[in-house]
């Protein structure tokens, strides 16, 4: 994944964050990724921004079914049960 074998640039790090957070990087890439974070505060903040982004998206509540749509479904359920 890395262009040079022994280190990642910041520009490479930002493209690997999703894989890093999903823990789907190879052991080798994960180690390069973490080594980079050890000396680059900018990328530590970037990864933190991505985590914050995911948490903020998680604040969105899913839509609830409108009552009349639910009534229609429960009606369909009773019809199905009778059949």
């Amino acid at each position, binding site marked *: 994944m890395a262009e040079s074998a022994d280190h990642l640039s910041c520009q490479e790090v930002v493209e690997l964050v999703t894989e890093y957070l*999903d823990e789907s990087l190879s052991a080798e890439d994960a180690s390069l990724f973490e080594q980079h974070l050890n000396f680059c505060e900018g*990328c530590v903040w970037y990864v933190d921004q991505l985590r914050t982004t995911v948490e903020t998206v*998680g604040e969105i509540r899913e839509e609830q079914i409108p009552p009349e749509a639910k009534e229609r479904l429960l009606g369909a*359920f009773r019809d*199905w049960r009778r059949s």
Partner: protein
Amino acid sequence: MAPAQAHPRTALSASEEADLVARLRDGDERAFEALVDRHYGTMLAVARGYVRTRAVAEEVVQEAWLGVLNGIDRFEARSSLKTWIMRIVVNIAMTRGEREARSIPFSAFASEKDEPAVDPDRFRDESDGFPGHWRAYPGNWAAAPDDALLSRETLGVVMSAIHELPPAQRVVITMRDVAGCSSDEVCGTLEVSEGNQRVLLHRARSHVRNALERHLDG
């Protein structure tokens, strides 16, 4: 109480799911209602990836529930109940989408041109000492006041950023980060590979981060 009433982000165990399926087959209305409450929002979000309007997406979801009831006796637990339900939504939505001349082959989206997560101008180029490294660091959001991130306004920014996304990215980020689905559930629902799923999620999250950065760092 019924396992189906657990928070939607908590996946059901195999035995809880088997119990729920048995109750549905027995015609247990409460089990059905709990299942509707649990999955309606995700179903609507998935349907909206394939059809043009909210009204049509609502019809798709209604029709999908009839499909669930008519098919529950044949459900064999080869996938989770949730993924099986979402596949029914996708199949109905795709049929509707074709009729509306808007069918979206989701796998096609992952091969569209690669959009970088961050504007390349933010990194040093070859003429600098450290090509590919930040010109100026991104902001330290941990130092931002909590209420700036959690404000209604910020949530509005995030919601519009998601709304602007291409449909496949929008469905993937909504399933993963709003509905709390696993990557397996997303792949099973949309029939995309693990890698494609991650590319779509990565672009979607990067887009939302960019929008948040513009909002927070002004």
